[in-house]
């Protein structure tokens, strides 16, 4: 998983360079050979050879559909293809659509709750798994397992656990003589069930990234801290937390994006209900695109999700320029 992720990052990173950014690291490498045209040509060819396949894949499967979605969002749709230009009408409709705002608010709340919690739990577990915990390999596998299984399958397991009438949790509560929790019929409980399942799915990934971060910290630093009389908490607070900063930054962005993308868990577990209490932007876009068959409006929602995520990432990136020096 992590190898795959880093491969993707690298390819998209290079792709960004192609887009006209100021000359970055690879370009400087090539200028070292300036003056010898054949050599420069060879390296340009090599670069194109390495970049080409990725650029083609990204172009066909990412940028083309993205551009297309943007086009569709300015058109009117009859369910079987766009039928005419309407300018910004779909976006104007968004502004006055209360369900859109409710879904946007739910998405924001979901993100604000899940991101810090999954980061904290991921770091906690990583610290635990990095210690001399007996059977830690098994625990690591178990914690990571939900990430490997299809999202729909994990959400169905969520239904088995949280179904209000037949779910395991309410059965246990009933057996224990306690009041059951209205997991599907009450908004807050439904939202909580989605968050719990999301955390279950996500902490494994965060744990693995943090684990990699932790393993690159030199044990001598901790030794020095202990000699200085630092307590375990102080070591964690003043050594571990800052030193896994680059991992935190990476995970923060990834988790925010995952949270904005949340779909399968909600689609399967609550369908956006009760009422609109678990409706998020992607489920609302899906509903418009594939139930109401208004794909133009759905595309407009998709573009809004894209812009929000992009702005967040850009802001984070600007605010964290110093991060490269820490890692």
């Amino acid at each position, binding site marked *: 998983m992590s190898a795959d*992720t*880093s491969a993707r*990052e690298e390819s*998209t*990173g*290079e792709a*960004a360079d192609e887009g006209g950014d100021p000359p970055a690291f690879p370009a400087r490498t090539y200028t070292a050979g300036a003056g010898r045209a054949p050599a420069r040509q060879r390296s340009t060819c090599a670069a194109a050879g390495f970049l080409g396949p990725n650029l083609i894949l*990204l172009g066909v499967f*990412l940028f083309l*559909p*993205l551009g*297309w*979605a943007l086009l569709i*969002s300015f058109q009117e749709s*009859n*369910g*079987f*293809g766009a039928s005419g230009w309407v300018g910004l009408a779909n976006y104007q409709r968004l502004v006055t659509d209360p369900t859109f705002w409710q879904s946007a608010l739910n998405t924001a709340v979901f993100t604000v709750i899940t991101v810090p919690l999954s980061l904290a739990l991921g770091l906690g577990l990583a610290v635990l798994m990095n210690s001399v915990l007996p059977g830690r390999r098994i625990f690591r596998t178990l914690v990571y397992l939900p990430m490997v299984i299809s999202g729909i399958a994990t959400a169905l397991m969520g239904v088995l656990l949280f*179904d*209000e*009438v*037949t779910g395991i949790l309410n059965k246990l509560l*009933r057996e224990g003589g306690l009041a059951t929790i209205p997991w599907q*019929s009450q908004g807050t409980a439904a939202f909580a069930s989605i968050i719990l399942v999301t955390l279950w799915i996500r902490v494994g990934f965060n744990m693995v990234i943090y684990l990699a971060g932790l393993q690159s910290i030199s044990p001598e630093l901790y030794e020095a801290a202990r000699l200085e009389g630092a307590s375990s908490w102080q070591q964690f607070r003043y050594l571990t937390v800052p030193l896994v900063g*680059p*991992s935190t*930054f*990476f995970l923060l*962005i*990834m988790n925010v*994006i*995952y949270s*904005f*993308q949340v779909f399968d868990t909600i689609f399967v*577990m*609550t*369908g*956006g*209900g*009760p*009422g609109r209490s678990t409706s998020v*932007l992607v489920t609302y876009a*899906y*509903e418009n*695109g*594939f*139930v*109401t*068959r208004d794909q133009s409006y*759905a595309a407009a*929602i*998709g*573009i809004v*999700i894209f812009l929000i*995520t992009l702005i967040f990432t850009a802001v984070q*990136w600007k605010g*964290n320029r110093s*991060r*490269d020096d820490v*890692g």
Partner: protein
Amino acid sequence: MTISRRQILGGAGFLAAAAALNGCAGFSGGGGNGGGGGDGGDGGQNTLTFTTWGSPAEEEGFRRGIDAFKAANSGVDVQLNLVPYEQIFTNIDAQLQAGTAPDLFRVDYGTIGAYSSQDQLLDLSSYVDTAAAEEFLPAMWQAVQYDGKPYGVPHQTDTSALVYRTDLFEQAGITNVPDSLASAWTWDEFRQVAEQLRGSIPGDLYPFVYNWQLGGSTRWLSWLFQAGGRLFDEDLTGSAIESDAGRKALEFTQGFFTDGLVPPSSSVKSSTYADDAFSAGTTAMAFVGNFVLPGLDENITDFEWSATYLPRDERGACDLGGNALVATKNARNPELAAEFLKFMTRPDQMSDFCARAMELPTLNSLVGTELDYQTRPDIAGIFVEQATTLEPSDVEQLTSPAMATINPKLRDELEAAFTQGRPVEETLANIAAAVDEAAG
């Protein structure tokens, strides 16, 4: 671990784009069946691709029908592509847009209008003569029409009735279970039965569950029709739900939730089907379609159950279940596709399919005859009789092309009324607005 800004930005950009695409371009592949038969030449012309969903019993029925069609037409092949019900129309829509749709597919009567009104289906006028059309029940033939032209054949129909646990009925002392359509419970009697059950069964069980979940929200209209109301006005160009009947139906059904007569999690947005809740033993009664009887028969092992008629108010009414078979407008061999549709609705084929899958026929000639139902033949007749309470005026409304747009709104409004306590008047006004907008 060192991660550069560029790597992070690149990775983030990738995911951000994927997030946007998730919302707007998430077509799932349809298994490539559309192009699967396009092997060119004569072989391609003699091959039909047919996409459907189906229970195991329905699948068996379709396979037998296809085998019989192939035996009767040498050199012809029909490729069956089974997909889950939840995805079929998403797939079909995407395939229609991409020009890779199958030649034939199965569609429910509530959705057929969304395709026929957008000129996506093969007009069967030149393939089906008047005599053949008259063989179908008028209401069912009406269900496949758009603008006076047939765009499919009514393959089967189904409807809901009320199943109940005999042990819990005995325990509650309920003995007056209706045994004919004429003696079906009135709404008041039904409500009394539900309250009687509420008093006798444990708190974690519920008197009944209604089958309006997972795309079934139009089944709420049965209550409206029973109360003597209409969703559309007479000429189907506006709403007629803001009426005494509309208020009565909504108040009555909202009471199911406020008075604890149905599981609170069984509203229109629930992800659990009514028959699953009944199979799990959590309700004493359930409104279910006849097509789930094979599943109930197989899954329920620890209690006895039987069935009775739907309650009635001003009149009896039921939902229009069942499906048509249609050919797409760009079917490669329209003659052969039409031939297949006619073959599948021949009396022998239809009776075999319906008997196997516990479904109701759509041919006049089969309505009076006793089909050889293979599951619970003792209660199959209840569904057959119940289906006769459906009136042509109901069908006309249920199959309006506007229903495709109204459905999601109806679902939202009912959900708000049932689980969020939205007042009856406001809910009706919102539904009326949605109907006016879609039909006007």
